[in-house]
């Protein structure tokens, strides 16, 4: 029985090639989209869960009240780890971990600037990094040691054995390679290419040895003996900073490592979600796309009910029970979904590299994992069952007498179910179109919004190595200006598109003593305004004509907080020292282009700073200018790579997340629309079959093809209109929620809705017309002579 049904199912698929193609294609796209999204969700979900002790590992977060809000961040005093381990029972290990940053590592002529960090030896107890070479028990105990990852070791040493070789760190320290570990997985929050002992950190940063309890400069990772200690340890940790320093308002707490990546948003000192929300949306999207692909399948299968009806009748007449028929139809749909799965695979394998590139992740199908296969087969069978259920129950319910007598199957109830399904598909598709349109509008708005300075042709070069010596920096500036390709040069204490130091100690006349105002601290050399193209709303830039060591510039945000109408000339106190405001800079985009600028104070420095900002002359050819600049920098600072960035590139990086979301919703929205159209096509096919006789009679009575076309399309236009009506408020709610997290956002206009409306209508009419035109043009006699 099974064999015969199977054979017939295959024959059926082969005979109706067009139908099979639409069906398998729709399901395959649905399945591929679903699996791709699920792979991504699994990847994000697996963040930091590769380590066997991840469940008992915690990141220490620090709550600090300032500006009337509580800020939570993963920064702690360096003293925390040791004290916590000594004083709090239940803590198995506690280590410091430096924020990874790119630093230079050199072996002979090979030198690489790679992500590096410092930590305590116990980090190898917390994380079971896979050690490839070396003795793990001695790692990081010697202050002049380094542990490399596999890729870096290969790059530095090639085929040589790296153990006990001496490498040079930042052109200063000589370090002995103690071990090589496997590369860290990309979905691990703790990442580095080489790791050095904390004792070296103290040697390089002597201030950190004296830093007390009010200096938050490193991460602290804590591992508990087991989670029953959590409550107790967490509450003890809470007061640990205040117990050691009465002036501090830091209140640390434990945040599970497994949640570090996904639950990264804090409000009022408590975790309130974060990336997990985006993940949930994607998860939902995955199943919605699969669902509409299934809906499609149902539509197309039931559309052929007249054809299959006869078969049902005959089978019942020769002794089939309803259960047999349900089984048969289910088998057919599972077969089809398995076929689609094969095609989906091909699609995924083709798309994966593109998708990985787009998202900057490393997704791969792991063919050796049994979980993967179970999920795969499970998904295929689930899809088959889901998609096949309605057709199976519907088709098997036919009364054999009626279908065999050639009565057309009463379409009423089943048609309305199908209409409902199509409306559902289109609601989903229209919502996605609306969201995509608004996401792109928002992206455009942010892209075109004034940054506050000119990012074009502005180059940022890190000041490192010998450039830290003021006279070398002066030489660089001089050479650059004389090269003719550079208009202006200045320096800044942080990358201009990124965050930097901040703190409290700003006082001004009339300040409420109890309030803490968090202010960004920056310093710059001469020509800052001229180089960046920022605007001063009052006052002047630092200049050589004045002695500016006790002068500062502030931004408008700070002026507003201080409530000063004319701040220029006012004297405020910074860390107890009086300083004079000489200029007010108009707010520019500091870190996030979506957020209001934070208050900022800028001092003048002549000495070394973090980056040099170079404005390429407007007259210069950009590529030659870049070559000239590279050459000059290399000449003065030969030990380091030039490492120059265009500021507009770093700025474009900030839009990455939104651009990604835009691309994702564009793609998957496109798929959803496409699949929905297939569903609509199915409905049109069905309708054409149903109304063949009616249309023929109308034609005999004198209706023109155009009349018929209008008649047939009218119903579908109605469905799409209903879908739009439902989708509009739904889309509005969703997109409004999304936009509300941005300070700067576009107003929701009628345009996205109009786009969604016109697009869905246009596509629907186009799809349906393909079918109805065929019916409208058909010879009426062909349909009527069978009556």
């Amino acid at each position: 029985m099974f064999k015969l049904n199977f054979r017939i199912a295959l024959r059926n698929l082969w005979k109706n090639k067009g139908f099979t193609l639409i069906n398998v294609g729709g399901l395959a796209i649905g399945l591929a989209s679903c699996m791709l999204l699920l792979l991504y969700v699994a990847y994000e979900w697996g963040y930091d869960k590769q380590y066997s002790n991840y469940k008992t590992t915690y990141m220490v977060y620090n709550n600090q009240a300032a500006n009337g809000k509580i800020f939570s961040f993963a920064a702690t005093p360096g003293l925390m780890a040791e004290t916590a381990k000594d004083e709090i029972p239940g803590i198995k290990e506690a280590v410091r971990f430096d924020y990874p940053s790119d630093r230079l590592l050199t072996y002979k002529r090979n030198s690489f600037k790679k992500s590096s960090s410092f930590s305590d030896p116990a980090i190898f107890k917390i994380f079971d990094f896979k050690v490839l070479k070396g003795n793990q028990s001695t790692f990081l105990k010697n202050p002049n040691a380094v542990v490399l990852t596999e890729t870096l070791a290969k790059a530095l040493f090639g085929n040589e054995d790296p153990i006990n070789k001496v490498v040079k760190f930042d052109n200063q320290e000589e370090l002995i390679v103690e071990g090589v570990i496997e590369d860290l997985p990309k979905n691990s929050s703790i990442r580095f290419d080489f790791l050095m002992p904390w004792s070296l950190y103290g040697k390089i940063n002597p201030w950190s040895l004296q830093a007390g309890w009010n200096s938050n400069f490193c991460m602290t990772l804590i591992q508990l003996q087991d989670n029953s200690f959590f409550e107790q340890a967490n509450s003890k940790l809470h007061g640990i900073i205040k117990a050691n320093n009465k002036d501090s308002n830091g209140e640390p707490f434990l945040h599970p490592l497994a949640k570090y990546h996904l639950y990264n948003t804090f409000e009022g000192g408590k975790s309130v979600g974060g990336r997990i929300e985006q993940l949930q949306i994607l998860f939902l999207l995955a199943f919605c796309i699969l669902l509409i692909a299934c809906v499609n399948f149902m539509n197309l299968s039931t559309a052929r009910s007249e054809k299959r009806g006869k078969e049902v009748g005959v089978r019942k007449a020769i002794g089939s029970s309803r259960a047999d028929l349900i089984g048969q139809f289910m088998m057919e749909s599972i077969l089809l979904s398995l076929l689609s799965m094969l095609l989906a695979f091909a699609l995924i394998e083709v798309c994966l590299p593109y998708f990985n590139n787009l998202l900057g992740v490393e997704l791969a199908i792991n063919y050796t994992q049994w979980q993967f296969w179970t999920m795969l087969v499970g998904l295929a069978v689930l899809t088959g069952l889901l998609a096949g259920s309605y057709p199976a129950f519907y088709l098997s319910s036919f009364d054999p007498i009626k279908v065999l007598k050639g009565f057309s199957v009463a379409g009423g109830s089943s048609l309305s179910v199908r209409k409902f399904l199509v409306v559902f598909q289109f609601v989903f598709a229209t919502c996605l179109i609306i969201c995509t349109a608004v996401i792109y509008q928002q992206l455009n708005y942010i892209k075109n919004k004034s940054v506050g300075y000119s990012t074009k042709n502005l180059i940022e070069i890190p000041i490192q190595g010998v450039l830290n010596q003021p006279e070398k920096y002066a030489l660089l500036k001089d050479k650059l200006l004389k090269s003719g390709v550079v208009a202006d040069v200045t320096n800044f204490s942080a990358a201009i598109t990124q965050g930097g130091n901040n703190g409290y100690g700003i006082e001004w006349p009339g300040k409420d003593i109890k309030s803490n105002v968090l202010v960004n601290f920056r310093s710059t050399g001469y020509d800052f305004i001229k180089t960046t193209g920022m605007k001063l709303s009052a006052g002047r830039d630092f200049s050589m004509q004045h002695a500016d060591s006790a002068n500062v510039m502030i931004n408008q945000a700070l002026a507003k907080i201080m409530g000063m109408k004319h701040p220029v000339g006012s004297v405020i106190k910074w860390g107890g020292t009086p300083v004079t405001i000489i200029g007010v800079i108009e707010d520019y985009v500091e870190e996030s282009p979506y957020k209001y600028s934070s208050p900022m104070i800028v001092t003048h420095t002549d000495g070394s700073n973090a980056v040099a900002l170079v404005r390429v002359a407007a007259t210069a050819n950009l590529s030659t200018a870049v070559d000239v600049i590279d050459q000059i920098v290399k000449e003065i600072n030969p030990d380091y790579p030039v490492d120059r960035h265009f500021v507009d590139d770093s700025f474009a990086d900030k839009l990455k997340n939104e651009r990604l979301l835009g691309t994702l919703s564009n793609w998957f929205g496109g798929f959803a629309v496409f699949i929905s159209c297939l569903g609509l096509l199915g409905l049109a096919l069905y309708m054409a079959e149903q109304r063949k006789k009616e249309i023929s009679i109308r034609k005999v009575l004198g209706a023109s093809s155009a009349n018929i076309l209008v008649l047939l399309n009218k119903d579908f236009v109605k469905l799409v209109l209903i879908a739009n009506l439902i989708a509009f408020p739904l889309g509005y709610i969703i997109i409004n929620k999304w936009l509300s997290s941005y300070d700067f956002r576009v107003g929701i206009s009628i345009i996205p809705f109009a786009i969604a409306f016109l697009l869905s209508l246009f596509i629907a009419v186009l799809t349906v017309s393909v079918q109805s035109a065929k019916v409208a043009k058909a010879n009426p006699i062909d349909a009527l002579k069978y009556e």
Partner: protein
Amino acid sequence: MIKLENIEKYYANKGLKNYILRHVTTTINAGEFVSIMGPSGAGKSTLLNIIGMLEEPTYGLYEFMGENITQLNERKRIELYRNHIGFVFQAYHLIDEMTVAENIEAPLLYKKVGSAERKSRVADMLDRFNIVGKKDLFPNQLSGGQQQLVGIARAVVAQPAIILADEPTGNLQSAQALQIMELFQTLNKTENMTIIQVTHSEANAAYGSRILNLQDGLIIK
């Protein structure tokens, strides 16, 4: 074998009862060859369908091989039906996607006959109906008469006690019709198979042993 008592069938339409069959009472014994005749709309096919358990009477008693059909549940009815009734249709109603051999095999599958026996019975049928050469063809590759032969083979292969034929020759040319009727007669005579056919043609009715004349839902003769 078949006992019908006061069978009635009507469709209610806006409160009006639209009668198809009224007070149909008759008995058909094993081995009979009965022809149901009457003008269009007399209720011939409905009567046949009720006998074949594809339709239920609105009212009345129907006993099939001593069992009261009107009181049986769905599963039992299908069981009874599978084992004892074979249908032959005017429009043949073969399954287009199946070959000749598969069409003949299908009822055996539902009866859960073992594979070896299935093969031998199908081969037997093909042989008996002289369609061995056509066994791998699909219905649309056959003439009407050949299709009806397959239809009959499909009805006979399950070895039913009774064959119900609804105008089996209605779509056929006369030479083919003759062949089919002779086949029915042989089945009736040599295998003692009970046959009930609905027909318009006096000539076809003459093959039977008895004629039931229906008019407006009533047996008039």
